[in-house]
């Protein structure tokens, strides 16, 4: 999918690249006489806050103003003006960089920049050659670009002013604005002016924001936020951009207005637009029909088996190549082309799946979702900008029994009953499961009048789980033999399957070395892997031997749930100021059998603990000459604010204690 959103205004890689290119072009020239700052910049200069004292700085500059101003013309064209003013804080800075994101539907009419050195005497104005347009994103083909300017000779106290003017032909009459600061920002503002008779709707997403100032007879709107501070990008923390307030705005023309882009009054309207845009693209060719028939025949009579093999056919046969130029960012290519070429992007793959299923009289619908950000959907303010990914929903026939291995991807949808969601773009997630990136997100199911915002499933602890069985045999000579079978499901499977696919040898070595690190004298480690079972499990079986138990002082020990402590990630909390976020809920379930243990060896203490969003339980029992142990940890809560760190520390402590249970031998 294509999106013309406005994320953070500073980005390192691009800035660095731009720096090299712009510097090589030769740069600013002093203006011959007199102050030449534009009035808006001169006003900012007069009111600029005092410079902080000299010293090493966390941020090399601060933004005094970041303003985006849109005037909507009667035909729906966006006349856009972006202004920013920043001040260099570090003596080590040599350049200051800014940029303006755009696409092929944008005509940039003016790009200007001014540098006011700290002595305030000579303003340097940019030249045309100072600007460079750079492709943005790692898509194979797209039209997302940024116009970048780098002002050289920056000094501590230098003030930089940038202004971009552009006419944009939007794909919809609406916009998103991130009130995000990657450096301290005194003021950020979005201004919107609409023609007389138009209305404006807005919603704040992710965090509360101010109401707009409205003027000009109800035609001018301005949303302002002050003193925005950057947030730490901490390990296991939320992404700073996703914590920032996000403003969604739609403009609605009066009935009958002829505009170049649609205005979406509700989600159904957006769905209709999409259905019209993609009409006919899912028409099946004879080859598609033949392929689908063959797959259905091979899969047998079970409906879900048929779905699985078809979804996996698309996932495994079609390679991901995205072409997101212009409306091609939204409009899928014909399913027949995708089937022949065996490449395409998410919407092409999803459309092919729908075409294949249609030949077998199975209904399937597009679902638009945001694969990389959360909190982008306003339930009552439709926008294409809420999404950047396409998956498929397949309603399940009534009465069909859904096995445990498909449940994680099934949700009840109003007016549709149970629906299974399928992401054919995700190479490593099995049919019946939802990746951590999509689980629980809101999405738009496109189905004519029944179109609606739905919430994806996959947010139960059992939807992302690790099941490990360890069989340990203690020989008469005290030697040990181990057989460890681990089944990973959901995101745990997705992640490991991806690692294994990149290099099966590296994965094997990683597992073998992890065994040998713990069991220093381990003999040969045998490793087998089954990357994808029909139930979606990624299964690894490891066997090894070790001549003795592990020494611990005068005793020897046998850990019952080895590795449990490392499977539940933890992070230091003492200095932390940002929440701890787990991508998804999870379950870790260990079952251990020890054969041949001395009958006198004591069993570890059983434990049970529960907290807000967490439960851990261990139990041990003797059955004949076998000792059985079980450890189950469930994390249903995924976000811990700083005031919940005490509870989180308790979780860490309880998990460690439970996972550390051992048998002690004299």
């Amino acid at each position, binding site marked *: 999918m294509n999106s013309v959103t406005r994320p953070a205004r500073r980005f390192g890689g691009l800035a660095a690249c731009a720096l090299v290119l712009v510097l090589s072009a030769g740069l600013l020239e002093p203006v011959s006489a007199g102050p030449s700052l534009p009035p808006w910049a001169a006003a900012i200069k007069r009111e600029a806050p005092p410079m902080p004292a*000299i010293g090493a700085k966390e941020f090399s500059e601060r933004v005094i103003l970041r303003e985006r101003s849109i005037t909507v013309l009667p035909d729906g064209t966006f006349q856009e003006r972006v202004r920013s003013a920043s001040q260099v804080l570090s003596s080590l800075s040599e350049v200051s960089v800014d940029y303006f994101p755009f696409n092929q539907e944008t005509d940039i009419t003016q790009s200007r920049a001014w540098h006011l050195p700290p002595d305030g005497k000579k303003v340097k104005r940019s030249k045309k050659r100072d600007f460079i347009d750079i492709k943005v994103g790692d898509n194979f083909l797209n039209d997302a670009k940024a116009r970048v300017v780098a002002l050289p000779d920056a000094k501590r106290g230098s003030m930089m002013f940038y202004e971009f003017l552009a006419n944009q032909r939007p794909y919809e009459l609406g916009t998103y604005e991130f009130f995000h600061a990657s450096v301290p920002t005194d003021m950020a503002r979005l201004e919107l002016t609409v023609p007389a008779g138009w209305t404006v709707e807005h919603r704040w997403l992710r965090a509360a924001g101010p109401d707009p100032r409205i003027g000009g007879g109800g035609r001018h709107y301005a949303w302002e936020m002050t003193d925005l501070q950057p947030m730490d990008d901490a390990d296991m923390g939320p992404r700073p951009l996703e914590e920032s307030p996000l403003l969604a705005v739609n403009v609605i023309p009066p009935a009958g207005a002829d505009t170049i882009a649609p205005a979406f009054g509700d989600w159904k309207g957006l769905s209709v637009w999409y259905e019209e845009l993609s009409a006919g693209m899912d028409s099946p060719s004879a080859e598609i029909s033949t392929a689908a028939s063959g797959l259905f025949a091979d899969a047998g009579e079970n409906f879900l088996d048929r779905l699985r093999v078809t979804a996996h056919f698309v996932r495994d046969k079609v390679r991901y190549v995205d*072409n997101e130029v212009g409306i091609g960012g939204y409009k899928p290519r014909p399913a027949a082309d995708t089937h022949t070429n065996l490449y395409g992007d998410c919407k092409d793959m999803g459309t092919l799946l729908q075409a294949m299923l249609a030949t077998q009289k199975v209904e399937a619908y597009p679902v638009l979702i945001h694969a990389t950000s959360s909190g982008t959907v306003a339930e009552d303010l439709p926008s294409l900008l809420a999404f950047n990914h396409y998956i498929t929903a397949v309603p399940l026939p009534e009465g069909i029994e859904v096995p445990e291995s498909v449940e994680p991807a099934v949700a009840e949808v109003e007016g549709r009953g149970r629906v299974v969601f399928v992401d054919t773009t995700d190479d490593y997630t099995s049919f019946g499961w939802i990746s951590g990136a999509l689980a629980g997100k809101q999405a738009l199911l496109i189905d004519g009048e029944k179109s609606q915002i739905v919430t994806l499933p996959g947010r139960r602890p059992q939807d992302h789980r690790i099941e490990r069985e360890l069989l340990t045999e203690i020989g008469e000579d005290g030697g040990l033999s181990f057989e460890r079978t681990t089944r990973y499901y959901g995101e745990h499977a997705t992640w490991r399957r991806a690692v294994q696919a990149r290099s099966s040898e590296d994965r094997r070595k990683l597992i073998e070395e992890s065994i040998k690190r713990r069991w220093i004298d381990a003999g040969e480690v045998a490793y087998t892997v089954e990357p994808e079972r029909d139930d979606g499990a990624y299964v690894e079986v490891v066997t090894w031997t070790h001549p003795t138990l592990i020494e611990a002082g005068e005793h020897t020990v046998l850990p019952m749930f080895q590795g449990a402590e490392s499977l539940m990630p933890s992070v230091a909390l003492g200095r932390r100021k940002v929440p701890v976020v787990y991508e998804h809920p999870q379950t870790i379930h260990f079952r251990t059998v020890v054969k041949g243990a001395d009958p006198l060896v004591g069993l570890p203490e059983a434990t049970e603990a529960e907290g807000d969003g967490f439960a851990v339980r261990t139990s041990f029992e003797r059955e004949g000459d076998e000792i059985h142990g079980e450890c189950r940890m469930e994390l249903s809560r995924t976000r811990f604010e700083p005031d919940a760190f005490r509870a989180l520390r308790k979780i860490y402590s309880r998990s460690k204690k439970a996972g550390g249970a051992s048998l002690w031998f004299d």
Partner: protein
Amino acid sequence: MKRVKIWLLLAALCALTPVAAKKLDIQPGPTTMTAEEKAIQADPAAGTEHGVILVSETNWNESRAYNEEVEFHLRAKILSREGLGLADVVIPHNVARGKILQWWGRTILPDGQVLELSQSELQPSTEYEGQSLTYQVLKGALPGVVPGAVIDYGYKINLRSDSISDNSIPLQRAWPVRSFEYSWKPYDKFPASLMVTRGDGLEIGTGRDGNWMRVSARNLPPVPEEDYMPPDREVRATLILYYSSPGAVQKPAAYWKNVANQWDGSVKMFTRKKPLQAAMQEMNLPQEGGPGPKLKKIYDWLSVNIRNDALMSAEEREAAAEVDEKTRNTAAWVLENRTASSFQLDQLFVGFARQVGAEAYLVFAPNRTRNYYNPQYMNSRQFSDLVVAVKLPGEASFTLVDPGSSLPYGQVPWFLTGIDGLLLNRKKPEPIKIPVTPAEQNVQTTRGRMEFGEDNDSILIEWEREGTGQAGFSEHHYLRYLSPKEREERLYRLCGEHGDFEVDTAEAPELGDPNEPFKLICSGESFGAGIGDNIGMYSFGINGAHIPPVPDLIAEERVHPVVLNFPRIDITEMEISAPEGFEPTEAPMTRNIKSPYGDYRLEFARTDDGYTVKRRFELKGLAISPANYGTFHEYLKEVRRADGSAVEFRRTAEGTR
């Protein structure tokens, strides 16, 4: 005659098979899969998992300004889904200033069907565009590709390029390369050379015919990646195409002599007698003992009195940048202003050394984490640093020093040691071994204690660490370089902060002075001690962040040599107090491990309320060959086993609940 000589030279240098060096006749590959291609299967253990490059052919003619010509052909077999990306074709040349003269691209499916990607289906992608420069590449996706298919594509393109640059192409990859052919016709206004590094024993040939140079390689085995391996350039066969300055001599000996001449000349220009002699008056040099003690005094004086700009802390850099001062590249200016670059300090020291009667030269040193010195590669960019070699009258060999580095006299930074540098003696430039600092001079000592918190719920650990020589050298300067926030993060990490260990104190008190040894002060609390009410015995592992990490080499076999940073000795002494309600049992046995790579000793003593632990770990040597890896691996394994030791505590009668 000259042509033959160069050809012979190239062949001898690379110890490679000569090949006919004409421009390659690049043509599309066959539209059918050969039997050999059909037979190729994935073999992950042999490095063949996702695909095999069957043919890679390039003709690069940049002999004419503004009129380059590039021909390229790639044929590959796809073996997995991960390998499908090979079919996403990017022609990485600026077509905005060029013209495609020929293109073919096809997929040969396992059933023999051939799918074509026509030139008209290639799409332009503008990577950047400015007033004076637009860079646009062409992209296309080969259709119908599945694992088992062979892809074959190629192109011929004319380019209006106005720049030339050196090029380094790894010939060996993580996967096997069946055939690699590269012909290059360089721009004829500059001397150009081609060389292959680490090609010994491989099927690689080089040759030259007229202005065309060529490399031909067959059946190159994959080169795996391993921890602690030498830099890439030193383990993979790599093709280097490079230009020299106009008029540069094209024989290594003469080339390096010329370089040495230039650098020695710059030292002479820099170090005029008068300012040096004036400074020496200030130094209070010892009159006894000859030039040796004088040199050491000068070395120390430079460390203390002349700021090395390269070692400034973030705060110092910030303050220095505020001063808009014009600098002059003379000893007089440096000595007056007391600030210098590393290079100026090296030159100064050479000047002073010569003043006191020593023989002294600059030495070019490569950073061995990136590459080693190769005399055949006539390019000074292979060096990253300069140090100084001094020899006192009557001495047989040079002493290598790095003035202003903060290291003691006779030591240079570890990443320059253990390999050859180039002695910039204008009369006789020659390789010089840069010695490794012995372990005894690189000692980090850690002392601290561990005790249990309230209700035995946590373990409190505090320790202090100090390093000498190379131990802590890099860390000390890296911490100074970081911004205050980055520095704090780094210090907490060094103190072992993680989910189970909350660090309360993480300080490096001597960071203000670059010449002070590295010192680290840490304290923190480990949660989840796991002492339940019903536990009668408690075992406690001694490992943690207070014990400097031992190289984590678990694999039992090795392809590449192991290269360590520097030999070292770690000394750790910890006092461990018993948890409340517990008492120590018996001290574990002392562990002694002896090996050619160092000795290890772990000693326990029972005290009234716990134990003391003394650990000494020695790591000698710098590079361990694969043949000797087994012994080294065994040593590390035994050390890991010993470091896994635990002390035991028994619940006392009073402690029973």
